[in-house]
């Protein structure tokens, strides 16, 4: 059988990620350090795990309502109010999803008509473009600039808008750059969008991991609430990646449409995870603070170290990534990562894996132990010194 003729043409047109090969190399290595995976190194706090276990002991093993357990939606509503001054009605404005990823997929599928354009700032997490395409839309990539600390500027947004623009993705705090959008940056974007029918898909999964200031949501801004879909979840804030717990908040008609699709495709998010999530919402704020403080220590150390050993790195104020510029080495992002991995056994991710704007940068995740980070820095120092020596010899 010729599956090329059977499979959907859109999915065939989507390229698999090029960094698989790094992982293949990495898996063969014994003493490699990986700053490659974007995931908390913490285990889910015990009281949250325990709540999941207890729900199983009590036999809570059935479906929940499609939108998610009532008590969980209530807790999410209270949490958003408490932490971000966001006001969403648990009855009709919140949908519990299988991770933030499902929420992004649903949002794009209920918003996009064939041919609609979705503005996707890059470098960013890899899902927005492919999911837009699968929803029948056309991703319009906007390259964020290091000199703007990888913020989306109103000029860039204006230039990308056409009559076909349906939505703009706002992935901040950003994976992979660590960049954030502060209130004034969001205001400038809102000025462009107010009075239009363009929706904002605000992926705020790293909202709690904002350093030195509180995260501001696009939905906080005047006139933006009604044109914003907020995606969030428990993976990053509560170190719950494997539980697959996310949620999405939006005006009622949008949540109603998303719930319809979710009910056909998923039914309901995992029940055990929902019980754990209730506990996370009720008693997890101190865990968030603790983990954020830990990440912050590592962040400061890593940024300072990178700048010290000569890799220019702007200060990332969110998420758990640094995104240093490696152009001074004369290597491409991929060559840099491959050589660094082979020679020094440290895995970081080439910036171009996150879209065209990422070439010339690499992403290192500091959700790793201080010991591993220190060792990675010392190996990087070594790598750069050897590289300069080699290049010096070739140059003379």
């Amino acid at each position, binding site marked *: 059988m010729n599956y090329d003729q059977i499979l959907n043409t859109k999915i065939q047109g989507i390229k698999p*990620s090029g*960094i*698989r090969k790094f*992982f293949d190399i*990495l*898996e063969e290595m014994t003493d490699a350090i*990986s700053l*490659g*995976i*974007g*995931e908390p190194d913490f285990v889910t706090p015990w009281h949250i795990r325990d709540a999941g276990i207890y729900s199983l002991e009590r036999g809570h093993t059935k479906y929940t309502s499609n939108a998610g357990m009532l008590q969980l939606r209530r807790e999410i509503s209270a949490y958003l109010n408490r932490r971000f001054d966001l006001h969403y009605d648990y009855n009709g404005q919140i949908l519990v999803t299988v991770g933030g990823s499902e929420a992004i997929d649903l949002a794009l599928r209920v918003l996009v008509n064939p041919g609609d354009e979705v503005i996707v700032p890059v470098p960013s*997490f*890899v899902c927005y473009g492919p999911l837009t395409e699968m929803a029948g839309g056309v991703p319009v990539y906007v390259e964020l600039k290091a000199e703007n600390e990888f913020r989306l500027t109103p000029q860039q947004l204006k230039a990308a808008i056409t009559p076909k623009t349906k939505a703009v993705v706002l992935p901040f705090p950003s*994976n992979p750059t660590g960049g954030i959008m502060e209130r004034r940056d969001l205001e400038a974007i809102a000025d462009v969008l107010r009075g239009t029918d363009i929706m904002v898909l605000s992926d705020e999964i790293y909202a709690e991991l904002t350093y030195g200031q509180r995260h501001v949501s696009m939905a906080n801004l005047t006139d933006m609430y009604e044109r914003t879909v907020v995606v969030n979840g428990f993976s990053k804030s509560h170190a719950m*990646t494997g539980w697959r717990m996310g949620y999405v908040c939006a005006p009622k008609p949008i949540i109603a449409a998303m719930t319809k699709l979710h009910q056909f495709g998923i039914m309901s998010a995992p029940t055990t995870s929902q019980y754990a999530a209730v506990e996370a919402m009720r008693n997890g704020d101190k865990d968030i603070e603790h983990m954020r403080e830990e990440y912050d*220590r*590592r962040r*400061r*150390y890593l940024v*300072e*170290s990178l700048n010290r050993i000569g890799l220019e790195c702007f200060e990332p104020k969110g998420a758990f990534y640094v995104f240093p510029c490696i152009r001074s080495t004369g290597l491409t992002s991929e060559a840099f990562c491959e050589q660094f991995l082979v020679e020094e056994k440290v895995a970081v*991710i080439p910036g171009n*894996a996150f879209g065209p704007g990422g070439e010339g940068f690499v992403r290192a995740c500091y959700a790793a132990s*201080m*010991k591993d980070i*220190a060792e990675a820095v010392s190996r990087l120092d070594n790598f750069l010194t050897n590289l300069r020596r080699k290049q010096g010899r070739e140059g003379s």
Partner: protein
Amino acid sequence: MEKLLELLEQDCSLSTAQLAAAAGLSLEETEQAIKKYEEEQVILGYKAIIDWDRVRRETVTALIEVNVTPQSENGFDRVAERIYQYDEVESMYLMSGSFDLTVIISGRTLREVAQFVGERLAPIPGVTGTATHFILKKYKEKHLVFRPQEPEEREYIFV
């Protein structure tokens, strides 16, 4: 500055550069602060937590409840001092509740520990009674769990 102490309490193997960056201080400030803490004995020392079972060295640890008649002038302190001066005493605390002192001692064998209690501790004037509890297994100490890290079989995922 207390941040430094928290960091050190968590992991005293951090380098000065790591401590400085993590606490948001300069290298010099960090060095000076640590020196001062050491001089003032805010920092008493630096020790490793070791799982001796994993190198198969036999040790026995006991927790001893001690009852004491307090003395008129120094209360418990004088008797306490006479107990903790022994090298065998690892940790010692004055307690509220049904007994007065918790004394934690370790030795190579059960006999050695029993001997210490019988021959050294119990005869100290002021000590009116002891109850010795041997530790059968250590699960956790200073936030560290005594168990071999299970290597996680996992494939890498791109996120």
